[in-house]
């Protein structure tokens, strides 16, 4: 029964967001359709930009999975993951998330495909992807642009945020979508 409530709310959020955006733009006398297509063109270049990395990484991830190493890795890491309430199946995603955005997208969609997008593990992977960022990439961009050499506590604090994100993702998936 709980699922019905969440589904109705999130089903309504999307059309409402679109309507709100269009209404606000119309009030400012903006050409809504032109804005829409300009943005969509940017989406096109976003996908074009990540596709080469996606090909390289999914190729590698598929090899890793086919070799059986991923399963072995999950078995080795299982006790540590279970201690924090993390499903061991999400181990590859957690390991790559802070390093590569397209890699995490590739690994995440692999997990969702294998276990099912609406399964508990698939949902956990989706929530993890949606609520964390590519930490090391962001840090490199910001401090690189400013020529900062002493980053002080930025990296540990950012990793604390990632870790809490993973643990809470596993909890919310279990509490909000099971039963």
């Amino acid at each position: 029964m709980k699922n019905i409530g969440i589904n109705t709310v999130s089903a309504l959020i999307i059309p409402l967001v679109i309507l709100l955006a269009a209404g606000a733009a119309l009030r400012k006398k903006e050409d809504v359709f032109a804005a829409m297509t300009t943005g969509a063109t940017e989406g096109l270049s976003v996908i074009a930009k990540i596709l080469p990395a996606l090909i390289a990484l999914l190729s590698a991830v598929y090899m890793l999975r086919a070799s059986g190493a991923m399963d072995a890795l999950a078995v080795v890491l299982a006790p540590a993951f279970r201690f924090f309430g993390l499903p061991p199946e999400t181990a590859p995603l957690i390991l790559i998330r802070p390093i590569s955005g397209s890699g995490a997208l590739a690994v995440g969609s692999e997990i969702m495909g294998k276990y099912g997008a609406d399964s508990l593990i698939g949902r956990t992977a989706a929530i993890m992807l949606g609520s964390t960022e590519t930490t090391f990439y962001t840090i490199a961009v910001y401090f690189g642009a400013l020529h900062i050499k002493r980053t002080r506590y930025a990296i540990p604090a950012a990793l604390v945020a990632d870790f809490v994100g993973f643990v809470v993702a596993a909890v919310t998936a279990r509490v909000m979508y099971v039963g």
Partner: protein
Amino acid sequence: MAMAFIWIGIVLFSLVFSLFAGTSAEVGKAALDGATAAVKLAIEILGPTCLWCGVMEVMRRGGLADGLSRLLRPILTRLFPSTRHNADALTSVSANVSANLLGLGNAATPLGIRAATAFSRDAAAGVATDDMCMLVVMNTASIQLIPSTVAAVRSSLGSAAPFDILPAVWVTSIASVTAGICAAKLLRRLWR
């Protein structure tokens, strides 16, 4: 360069592991399957991604990004003390945070770097200030309101309601950002 090592590492590790596990044939085939899967994935998420980028652009032109950043100011002056006497930094930080909330990643990064540049005015060269660290921590923790790419992947994989993860993503994001902010505030006492 880091990505190169990780990529080669994964390939090498799979190869060596497959020799021991006797799965070499599968690994060879998987390399090509992975490339095909990447293109399929890209095509399947292309439509929803373009749709959302379009909606976000409509939002931006409708002034929703500006409205958000006005709303955020009282909170941001607390998180970034130097913005109280640095109006330029405050404008950039609030624009950066609201772009992140709307999922405008491409717009958020240059705004964030502008804010960080404004912070660097009262800093020793090459050393990150407290406000800079806080800004980086907030940008490494995702605060996106609508994770559209993930939803696009879910819908391509046959999810019944791709956006039903929204409440969980919000709870998780809030927990993660709060943890990052607290960690930054605690650690700044130890790091001099």
